[in-house]
């Protein structure tokens, strides 16, 4: 926009110069050879200004495109990056003891119901381990969808009409640390 404004301003100045030299020639204040030189100069300046304007415009467009490509490359890099894992340690609050299969199906149905087929595929949640005695377990998921899993777990009490509550205790990046947390941390 600024380049266009500059171009218009320079164009106006050059046109004024041409009008001035023409009027001077008409009134006989300058000779034909001088007028011819001035006219050629003005024409050259006009062509130069136009070419420069086009060049500046091209540079701006190219820069914008480069920036866009760079940001898209970054996005693509983030998508293509190997997904890191997160381990969510949880504890179940329920009156009756739940078996591993029951917990597995509950978590899978919660995630599938909340986020659908594509969402659950992206989340890739899996019950790694579950202790029926202490009702504590570990869920593995993709690091970018950690909040989605927490949200789905929060809906457990809603879905079971306050019979089962899944409380996430901690999130870690390694399974070893998650297993240590299972041993030490508890809400009881």
């Amino acid at each position: 926009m600024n380049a266009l404004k500059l171009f218009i301003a320079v164009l106006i100045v050059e046109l004024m110069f041409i009008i001035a030299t023409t009027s001077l020639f008409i009134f006989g204040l300058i000779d034909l050879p001088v007028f011819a030189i001035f006219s050629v100069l003005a024409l050259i300046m006009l062509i130069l200004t136009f070419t420069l304007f086009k060049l500046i415009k091209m540079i701006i467009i190219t820069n914008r495109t480069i920036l866009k490509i760079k940001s898209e490359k970054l996005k693509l890099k983030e998508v293509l990056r190997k997904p890191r894992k997160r381990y969510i340690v949880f504890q179940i609050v329920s009156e009756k003891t739940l078996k591993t299969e029951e917990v597995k199906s509950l978590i899978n149905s919660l995630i599938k119901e909340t986020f659908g087929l594509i969402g659950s595929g992206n989340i890739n949640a899996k019950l790694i381990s579950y202790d029926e005695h202490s009702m504590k377990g570990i869920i593995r998921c993709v690091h970018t969808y950690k909040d989605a899993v927490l949200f789905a777990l929060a809906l457990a009490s809603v879905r079971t009409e306050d019979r089962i509550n899944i409380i996430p205790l901690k999130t870690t990046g390694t399974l070893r640390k998650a297993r240590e947390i299972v041993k030490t941390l508890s809400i009881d």
Partner: protein
Amino acid sequence: MEIEGPVDFCIYYRNPEETAKLIKLALKLGFKTVVASITLKEQDSFKELTTKVNGLKKMIKEHNFENTFMRLHLIGSDISWFKNCLRKLRYEFHIISSKPLNVEALRFIARDRRIDSIVYGNRELAKFFDKSQMKLMKNTGTVLELQFNSLWSSTHKGLIFSLRRTLGLAIRNNVPIVISSGSSTLKNIKTPLQLASLLIVLGIPYVYAKQAICTVPLSVIKRNMHRLSKKHVEPGVDIV
């Protein structure tokens, strides 16, 4: 005593034993400040409320909960009833919240400075949380509150859409948002991260989600603590 976040802005009071257990668990799960809420409906009597308040006060004192505050949750549709309740009970509680059941009450509550938060829950009123409502709420400093457990009471159809629309309007109009668990038993208590995940799943940045469970509820509590102190005379006038 220093108040810190994250804050569970609403834990419903049922009986002293269960509420004490609930507060203990909430503090264990990572909340540093808890607000125990007593519900008052139009048909409830004030005598019942007084016994509940005394029970809650006694429980807080017995268990020595330092960062636990009391809140009154008004549910009704009659404006004169709201006015009466506010006149009688404003100085008894740290926080006053409301869940209006019709549009007139919703507009009245948004205009009243004595009410700290409006609970978003009634699906029929979702379309009335519009630009004008947000402007009224912004002028009075009222907070928009989402109670996690009461959001999903019936079918989820249309809820996400209306929730996202309301949240977008609130953020655009600079209306503060608070997320609370709204839990009443051990079976529906939530962790701070679970509360924040609601906003994150709806596409709202983590910064706003963090504010909704830490900064905003803390500022509301601090504001009301100052209002209830003896130094405060009226808005803008304090005894130094």
